[in-house]
């Protein structure tokens, strides 16, 4: 496996140095691994802090800026950040209006963010939390840790971030974040495994000519393996899996997300197929985003995320945002 790196041990730090040099709107603390919007804390506004393992870029660091995250804490590749990072981030961005943690539902992230919340509260910072668990591929049961958090994280961070920018209080920003998550569902597909720099070989074994339906964003297996399907067949499978779980009532935000190694040429074609299935099922699409937003290193494949919206959520989605990876209206 060829990677454009120096040594595996420094990939995260190297990426942070690169982000610091590329985005003057951000303050990047490479040593402590915290990315903060340069104008933080913003007086009178609730601050959003997220984070998670690296390897999903542009999530989360690429979503730091006006109208979205106040700070992001990248962990090692596919490893949640440590509590000290989130506590440091919270202290840097809190204006006194409180901090909302956006946490993807993985055991490690949940444990570390919970410990961070305790540390921040000890410092007198008010903390609330929204847990993102949108992936329908892994069903809830007594024995699993619940559904995984994937593409809906982008929707939660954007919409709750917009509410914070409008000066909504912490309880409202938290409630809006939860509402976005509750109305969001995702399904992902892998055409090839991903390779972590530390290991250097694929994290799972996916034979040529097969695909993994319901894959997670760390290459965790999903529902089943099948012989390769066409883009149209995959779109049918993914959208049906989502709509089975969340019957459509309202118009949706649609995210067609690349996993990292799938060319945009293929992703646009897949998006056309997703739109076809949604039209067949009578689902109105209010807004669409196509691109690589919640990736899984060099995995080939894609995921679909739908979020059922109302007028307020759509207005907040359309509100101005200025981050490295998402930017409109300003």
């Amino acid at each position: 496996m060829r990677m454009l790196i120096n040594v595996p041990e420094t990939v995260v730090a190297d990426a942070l140095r690169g982000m610091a040099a590329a985005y003057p709107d951000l303050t990047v603390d490479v040593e402590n691994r915290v990315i903060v919007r340069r104008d933080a804390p913003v007086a009178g506004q609730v601050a959003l802090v997220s984070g998670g393992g690296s390897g999903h870029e542009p999530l989360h660091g690429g979503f730091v800026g006006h109208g979205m995250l106040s700070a992001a804490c990248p962990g090692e590749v596919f490893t949640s950040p440590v509590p000290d990072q989130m506590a440091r981030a919270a202290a840097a961005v809190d204006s006194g209006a409180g901090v909302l943690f956006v946490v993807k539902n993985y055991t490690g992230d949940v444990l570390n963010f919970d410990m961070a919340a305790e540390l921040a509260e000890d410092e007198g910072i008010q903390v609330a939390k929204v847990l993102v668990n949108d992936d329908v591929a892994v069903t809830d049961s007594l024995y699993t840790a619940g559904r995984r958090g994937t593409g809906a994280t982008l929707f939660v961070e954007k919409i709750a971030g917009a509410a914070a920018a409008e000066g909504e209080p912490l309880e409202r920003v938290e409630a809006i974040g939860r509402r976005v998550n509750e109305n969001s569902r995702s399904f992902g597909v892998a055409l090839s495994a991903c390779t972590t720099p530390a290991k250097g070989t694929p994290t799972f074994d996916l034979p040529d000519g097969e695909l993994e339906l319901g894959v997670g964003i760390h290459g965790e297996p999903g529902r089943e393996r099948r012989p390769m399907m066409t883009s149209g067949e995959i779109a049918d499978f993914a959208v049906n899996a989502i709509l089975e779980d969340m019957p459509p009532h309202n118009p949706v935000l649609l995210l067609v997300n690349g996993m990292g190694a799938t060319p945009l040429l293929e992703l646009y074609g897949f998006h056309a197929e997703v739109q076809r299935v949604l039209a067949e099922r009578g689902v109105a699409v209010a807004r669409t985003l196509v691109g690589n937003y919640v990736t899984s290193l060099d995995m080939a494949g894609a995921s679909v995320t739908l979020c059922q919206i109302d007028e307020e959520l759509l207005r907040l989605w359309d509100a101005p945002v200025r981050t490295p990876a998402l930017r409109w209206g300003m």
Partner: protein
Amino acid sequence: MLDADFFRRWMAVTAASVDREAEQLTELDSAIGDADHGSNLQRGFRAVAAALEKEEPATPGAVLTLAGRQLISTVGGASGPLYGTLLRRTGKALGEAAEVSVAQLAAALGSGVEGVKQLGGAVVGDKTMIDALEPAVAALEGGFAAARAAAEQGAEATTPLQARKGRASYLGERSIGHQDPGATSSALLIAALEAAASPAEGRA
């Protein structure tokens, strides 16, 4: 009796074993997890070894509390809080004593394991580190060799189990047939007690 030096050796031997077995742990983790257990623990125990050299805590309890805090601050993932809590709780249970008996260590480690169970919600049979730790604590009064044997047996016994906690649980039945990486690293930690007790090896 076991003094602070013994506990420092325990952590040093654990760090050396994790270094030696890191690739193997990551390999096990790539079968049913996300291929980072070895490198994460390696980073954590290296930080533990460095902190113990710098700060030289004076009591067994202080050694383990410092080690646990280092793991929480450096490992990340689920392993950081879980291993950190294990050592911190054990250290706190040992109190301020300058020396402790094996029986006291067994009782303290028992409360550390309870802390891990509370935090992670796992019990024996869920294919986690608890499968190695709980039998080791029960065997510890019979000596370090007995504890090591119990931990290793517990880790090996995770192979036919279906994971019910953590990322491996997403695999469901597909987790069967692979030894759990967390139970495997827990067995390394317990095995290091025996090596730490024989000073020739322990100073490695």
